[in-house]
């Protein structure tokens, strides 16, 4: 028995898990319908931006009904969003809340408690809908969760040691997160040899609040490399609407270019790299019609950046977990908009792209130059040293020195670079574009810039 398998046996031996039958799972995946694999859809949908909502409810029946609604709206990829207790491996609380939800027909969880529900039950739904499903969680230690997901027929796993830790956790140890995600990558790689590849996706939106593109791209590339290192063959890098159309375009162009560049440089030129665009992930307006406008605007931008997949929001965003109807309506409108948009121009901005490329390369170079022996240790050191940090992280390891605000065009610019290893030149490019209105403090400006879509 391999070392990995020994770990896996331990992981699934958990009081909240029924007997986990690895052989049965393997043969399920080997024979699974191609339609369950997003990697397959990417290959066969050349040109069409796949549409994926978010969503999850505590009970099986509610998720089933949600999927039905999505399918009627012509969804391309179904989501399975996990509740936040499961995200923090608090299966006891999840179990209690699931029971309450089932008894009282009220949602006491903000997502689907996949571990408590189990893979035998969940798989029924996946096979029934025969559509790619993406696992959305935000879990630093997702080992058990992804065993459950893959066994259920969910063949896209979102997240990564940085993107699911820095925005999603307060004090989960980062080194452990790296190791736990290594496990995830390995299991994904293992299963990728059985049928179509399992797709891994990084979570570019991070804390969704004034995230500078350079940091987003650096983190995307690190997580991509960590995944490809373990043998994953299909990977999606992602980012969310910045608030400036031009900055979205520049970010997409550089992210596409550099992710492919580094994959190749590290010897993974055979991997498929996809681009995912998240509709606005920050604070939404409290007017549902305006939210619809924001959603459509994001869709137009996704078409402009030629995203392989778009992840949608809903008109209920500012209020709470959306109803299935509101969620499906967004899918329908996004599909309509993508289908109706024609003659979308291909745009670029050389100076912006050059500087962003420079910033990313500078940070990555500092990271690669770290003396540690493995990439994850280099990344770990870089974060500890503050060479990489994100604005508005709840995590204690995050340096919290970098300050970003918007320039007059709405682009997010680095105001204080903290310990980011940026050259004077690449930093000045950003910094020089910032104008704090007279009589305003930087804090005023930050508050204003967070609320830019309200």
């Amino acid at each position, binding site marked *: 028995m391999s070392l990995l398998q020994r770990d896996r046996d331990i992981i699934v031996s958990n009081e909240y898990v029924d007997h986990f039958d690895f052989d049965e799972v393997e043969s399920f995946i080997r024979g699974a319908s191609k339609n369950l694999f997003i990697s397959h859809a990417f290959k066969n949908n050349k040109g069409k931006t796949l549409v994926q909502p978010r969503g999850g409810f505590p009970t099986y029946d509610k998720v089933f009904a949600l999927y039905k609604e999505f399918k009627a709206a012509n969804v391309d990829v179904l989501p399975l969003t996990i509740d*936040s207790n499961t995200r923090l491996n608090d299966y006891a609380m999840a179990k209690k809340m699931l029971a309450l939800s089932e008894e009282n027909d009220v*949602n006491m969880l*903000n997502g689907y408690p996949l571990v408590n529900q189990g893979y035998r039950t969940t798989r029924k739904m996946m096979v029934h809908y025969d559509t790619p499903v993406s696992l959305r969680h935000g879990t630093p230690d997702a080992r058990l969760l992804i065993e459950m997901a893959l066994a259920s027929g969910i063949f896209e796993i979102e997240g990564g040691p940085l993107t699911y830790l820095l925005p999603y956790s307060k004090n989960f140890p980062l080194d452990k997160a790296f190791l736990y995600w290594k496990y995830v990558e390995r299991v994904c790689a293992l299963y990728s040899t059985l049928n179509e590849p399992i797709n891994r996706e990084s979570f570019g939106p991070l804390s969704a609040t004034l995230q500078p593109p350079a940091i987003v791209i650096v983190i995307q590339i690190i997580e991509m490399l960590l995944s490809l290192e373990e043998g994953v063959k299909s990977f999606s890098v992602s980012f969310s609407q910045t608030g400036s159309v031009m900055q979205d375009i520049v970010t997409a162009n550089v992210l596409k270019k550099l992710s492919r560049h580094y994959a190749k440089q590290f010897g993974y030129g055979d991997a498929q790299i996809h681009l995912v665009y998240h509709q606005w992930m920050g604070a939404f307006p409290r007017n549902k019609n305006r939210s619809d406008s924001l959603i459509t605007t994001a869709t137009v931008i996704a078409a402009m950046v030629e995203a392989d997949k778009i992840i949608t929001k809903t008109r*209920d965003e500012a*209020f*709470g*977990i959306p109803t299935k109807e509101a969620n499906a309506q967004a899918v329908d409108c996004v599909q309509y908009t993508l289908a109706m948009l024609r003659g979308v121009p291909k745009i670029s901005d050389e100076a912006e792209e050059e500087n962003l490329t420079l910033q990313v390369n500078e940070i990555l170079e500092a990271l690669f130059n770290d003396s540690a022996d493995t990439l994850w240790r280099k990344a770990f050191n870089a974060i500890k040293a503050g060479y990489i940090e994100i604005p*508005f992280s709840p995590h204690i390891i995050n340096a919290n020195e970098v300050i970003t605000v918007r320039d007059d065009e709405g682009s997010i610019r680095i105001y204080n670079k903290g310990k980011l290893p940026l050259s004077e030149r690449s930093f000045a490019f950003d910094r020089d574009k910032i104008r704090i209105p007279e009589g305003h403090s930087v804090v005023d400006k930050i508050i204003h810039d967070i609320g830019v879509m309200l």
Partner: protein
Amino acid sequence: MMKVVTGVVGNDIHVVANRLIDISLQERGFEVFNLGVNTYLEEFIDAVIETDAKVLLISSLNGEAEGWCRDLSLLKSQYELEGVVFMIGGNLSVGEDNPDVIIPKFKRYGFDLVFHQSDLGIGLDTLEAYLKEHV
């Protein structure tokens, strides 16, 4: 300076409002003990006792407030917490819900001031008015 303990309750990691609340409370002259996100009710109570704070201002954004706060009266009965103002705000339910249902519910759980999806400024104004009246 009046002491306030604040933070985000339960398994909730939405930190943006928490940062703004910290700044706003300081601007209004409070001494702030910010426990940050992902803080359990017991930790809040401990901090209130330790710091001798007069206000506990809890945020909850991810919809799970109810599950984490329903035991407040129980805790209040176990500790000496007379004179402490209990306040909660943010997004207090999963999905869209009626404030007319939510606010009385959280009052029953033991909160003095409850704000569901309302403006921070108005909430803090109300707090100050309440403090003037009751303390």
